[in-house]
């Protein structure tokens, strides 16, 4: 076993190489903009240079004079599109700001024109020659800008149902022996997946094919159909590979229906490749947040009072929020809890989910505060977590289905060498470098959604699995193939997997870390349907058992029992008994507690995720612990993070290789969020300043010297048939706080605002 392919522990699958590895290393993996089109025209976007106001006029003469220009589409001649509601209000859209509809400008970088030309080069040149006259109004950029409005999230965001509370926070906080009040800030961040936000649209008669990197092909298909006013069955979204998502491709953006509408009118395929900077404003992002945490504890470290107030920025029309108090109020035992989430509206594009949307900002606040409390108590921060560990969440009193938080802390602490740490800040150095150790808890809700699958088995063992899942780098192909191979007892190399196509059976959005749990549960179920048919062929006593079942309602048929067990199956014998060439089954799986309409919703592109704290009698989360070494140069204040160590428990690990890679990437994302990433906002113009990959800092290889991922064995039989908790968003949650806690240990300076850069280190 190599580092990349860890030895599986109990309840882990084999660390087989990725199903799509050969395609990805040879350039044969086809992403949306790689798809061949027949004689395409090229689109180039023109975006608004003001954040608020109106377009007075366009001067298009110069642009039209460019050789090869076919058309320039503005609000005056744009295809008429129907509105789509925000996904959280029952629609499909990530924003209700619909460009090309009127002269109004709602945010900087809003699409205001689309140039169509014979070549990419001509479209780009003409777009640069479009002249626009605006009447600008001073915009509100962010928190503290004049003209923003603030209100509680509850009541304006349908998905934010409660400000969690229990007991009497005010009285308990007043009476607490040890108190902490602290405020924390997180910045706006952009996903910046490597693949640009490209869209190609091709019509064949009344049927539309969309090639676009999407984390939800069923949502996009239904959303575009709604906007175009056509039957969803006439729209097909295809993306066998997606060049990174991180949440940016989970909901529909306005560009898709616009391009589809223009392609229809032109009667020609259109290919849009937006620029990197346009991606900052034509899609979503993680909005900036502010937090106030109040903790009250006894001298023994037991929490007696916890209050978390969070504020988040959203756009004028859309009340998007992540509301991470649902997690921070339930993580530790505490009898008196209060919380409040509010939304501040500014003249910005609508934010959206970005990897671990609620947990990244909200746990940064809580896990920093826990470290501050440990300092006040003169207590080891690991021990503070241990004292407040709980198997029952305090708000609803529901038990965790499984919780390996402290096991993760102990494993990671051991691997990291935490016991060697001297608790005194600024006590360790190496030449010019101050060294600090820090840690934090990490967690993410276990979520699932209804999913369908189709599986076809041939006599020779060749298997085809069809499911409209999404390969965004998570290893979807691989774990689906492993699930089918294992369940049917066929060799892995005989399994072919098809995902990323809305003509396949529906799978949920690849978001909320639900994909593996949902798709693999569906594939398992459908494989069991096949096993049942085959067992039935070779177990003739079924008819008697069926009869018994019908008459007295007892006992499953032997074939059903055998199908649901791990009993090996002689496929050839069963096929011969059946006398068929192919056995194919389709099935729809839904998680326990899914709403009644969830299968209908699944087909119409609405993923009904259940899990986390919203389960009926239980609460399900994956947990982990992260330890970080930072080095701060005492003269230049340069900050490095040479060691990141994380231990994680997330139920069944389908493939330790892909799981480790995802968690490793998550830890690096967390480091990046703590030390590098921020979208800088021009406060006067409500404009993103660093909208490119040179100025929006993401880690490069030299930033990442040492990452260690420890996978803990954990079995949870109370979540879903696959036993999977999901881990794509688990690792980048705790890192922010762990790094700030380590910086405190290195320097004695507590930093409560991300990202931490050298100019933020005082001395």
């Amino acid at each position, binding site marked *: 076993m190599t*580092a990349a392919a860890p030895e599986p522990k109990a309840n882990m699958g084999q660390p087989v190489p990725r199903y799509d590895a050969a395609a990805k290393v040879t350039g044969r993996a086809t992403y949306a903009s790689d798809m061949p089109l027949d004689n395409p025209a090229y689109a180039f976007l023109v975006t608004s240079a003001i954040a608020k106001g109106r377009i007075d006029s366009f001067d298009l003469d110069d642009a039209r004079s460019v050789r090869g220009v076919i058309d320039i589409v503005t609000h005056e001649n744009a295809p008429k599109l129907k509105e789509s509601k925000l996904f959280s209000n029952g629609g499909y859209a990530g924003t209700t700001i619909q460009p090309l509809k009127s002269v109004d400008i709602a945010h900087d970088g809003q699409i205001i024109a689309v140039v169509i030309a014979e070549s990419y080069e*001509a479209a780009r040149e003409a777009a640069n*020659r479009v002249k626009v006259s605006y009447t600008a109004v001073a915009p509100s950029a962010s928190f503290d800008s004049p003209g923003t409005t603030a209100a509680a999230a509850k009541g304006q965001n349908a998905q934010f149902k409660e400000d969690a509370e229990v007991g009497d926070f005010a009285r308990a906080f007043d009476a607490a022996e040890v108190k902490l009040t602290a405020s924390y800030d997180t910045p706006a961040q952009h996903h910046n997946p490597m693949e640009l936000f490209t869209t190609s649209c091709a019509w064949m008669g009344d049927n539309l094919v969309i090639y676009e990197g999407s984390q939800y092909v069923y949502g996009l298909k239904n959303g575009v159909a709604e906007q175009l006013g056509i039957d969803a069955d006439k729209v097909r979204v295809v993306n066998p590979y997606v*060049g990174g998502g991180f949440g940016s491709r989970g909901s529909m953006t306005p560009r898709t229906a616009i391009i589809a509408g223009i392609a229809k009118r032109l009667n020609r395929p259109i290919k849009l490749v937006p620029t990197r900077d346009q991606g900052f404003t034509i899609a979503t992002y993680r909005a900036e947040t502010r937090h106030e945490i109040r903790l009250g504890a006894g001298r023994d470290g037991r929490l007696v009072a916890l209050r978390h107030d969070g504020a988040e920025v959203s756009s004028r029309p859309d009340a998007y929020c992540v509301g991470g108090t649902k997690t921070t109020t339930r993580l530790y035992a505490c009898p008196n809890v209060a919380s409040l989430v509010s939304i501040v509206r500014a003249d910005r594009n609508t934010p959206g989910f970005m990897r671990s949307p609620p947990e990244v900002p909200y746990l940064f606040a809580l896990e920093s505060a826990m470290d501050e409390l440990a300092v006040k108590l003169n207590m080891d921060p690991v021990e503070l977590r241990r004292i407040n560990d709980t198997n029952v969440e305090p708000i609803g009193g529901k038990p965790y289905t499984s919780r390996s938080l402290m096991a993760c802390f102990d494993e990671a602490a051991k691997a990291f060498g935490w016991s060697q740490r001297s608790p005194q800040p600024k006590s360790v150095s190496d030449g010019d470098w101050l060294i600090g150790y820090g840690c934090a808890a990490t967690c993410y809700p276990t979520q699932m959604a209804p999913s369908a699958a189709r599986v076809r088995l041939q006599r020779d063992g060749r298997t085809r699995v069809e499911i409209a899942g999404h390969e965004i780098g998570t290893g979807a192909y691989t774990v689906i193939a492993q699930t089918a191979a294992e369940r049917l007892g066929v060799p892995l190399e005989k399994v072919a997997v098809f995902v990323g196509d809305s003509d396949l059976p529906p799978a949920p959005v690849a978001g909320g870390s639900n994909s593996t749990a949902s798709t693999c549960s569906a594939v398992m179920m459908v494989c069991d349907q096949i096993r049942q048919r085959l067992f039935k062929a070779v177990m003739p006593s079924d008819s008697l058992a069926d009869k018994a079942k019908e008459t007295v309602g007892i006992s499953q048929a032997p074939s059903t029992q055998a199908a649901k067990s791990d009993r090996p199956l002689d496929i050839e014998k069963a096929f011969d008994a059946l006398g068929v060439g192919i056995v194919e089954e389709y099935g729809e799986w839904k998680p326990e507690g899914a709403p009644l309409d969830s299968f209908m919703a699944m087909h119409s592109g609405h993923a009904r995720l259940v899990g986390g704290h919203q389960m009926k009698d239980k609460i399900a989360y994956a947990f982990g612990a992260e330890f970080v070494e930072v080095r701060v140069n005492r003269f230049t204040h340069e900050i490095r993070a040479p060691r990141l160590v994380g231990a994680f428990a997330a139920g069944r690990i389908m493939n330790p290789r892909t799981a480790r890679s995802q968690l490793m990437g998550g830890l690096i994302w967390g480091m990046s969020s703590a030390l590098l990433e921020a979208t800088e906002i021009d406060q006067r113009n409500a404009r993103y300043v660093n909208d490119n990959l040179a100025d929006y800092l993401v880690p490069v290889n030299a930033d990442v010297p040492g990452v260690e991922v420890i996978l803990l064995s954990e079995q949870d039989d109370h979540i879903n048939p696959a036993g999977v908790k999901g881990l794509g968003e688990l690792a980048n949650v705790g890192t922010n706080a762990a790094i700030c806690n380590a910086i405190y240990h290195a320097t004695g300076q507590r930093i409560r605002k991300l990202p931490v850069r050298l100019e933020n280190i005082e001395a």
Partner: protein
Amino acid sequence: MSEKSGSGPSGFDRRAFMAGAAGSALVPMAARAAAQDANVSAASDPALPVDVTLRVNGKDKRLHIDARTTVLDALREHLKLTGSKKGCDHGQCGACTVLIDDRRVVSCLTLALAAEGQEITTIEGLATDDHLHPMQQAFVDNDAFQCGYCTPGQIMSAVACVKEGHAGSEADIREYMSGNICRCAAYPNIVAAVKQAAPEIMKG
């Protein structure tokens, strides 16, 4: 279709084009003004297609393309070699990295006309007879990618990194592979892959 079969001289004066417009290709308006001053007929309207022959993965490819076309867009849009990826079009991310005369270059900042007469190697040209190149195999073995979008650029860069003699230590590999962004952050696995493939590539 802009790709043409057959071979022969392009008939386009690259020197004149370079003087007139190529350096300003990312600023079309400046390019236009400069070209008019120079009174170079082909460059007076950069949208007028020009003939160019690119040698890609050992084969000559004749193209009739907009003079401002980059190597990346020539590969992707005109030669249907979509392995090289567009991640920024500004030379900031490295996803478009190809080898030109064995040097790694960002093909999004290289005009197709400027690459005429040089040997372009793309990800599609690395594997031979269905055998993966040692670097490709090392990327598979070490799970050195997730979404895979940056991978062709990483691999081309990694091959050059080894041949440049910059794969002697992990620290060197990290430094000399830092022109290629991997947003999934497979970095430690990329370092492991380069380390694994380096001896085999140097051997032969």
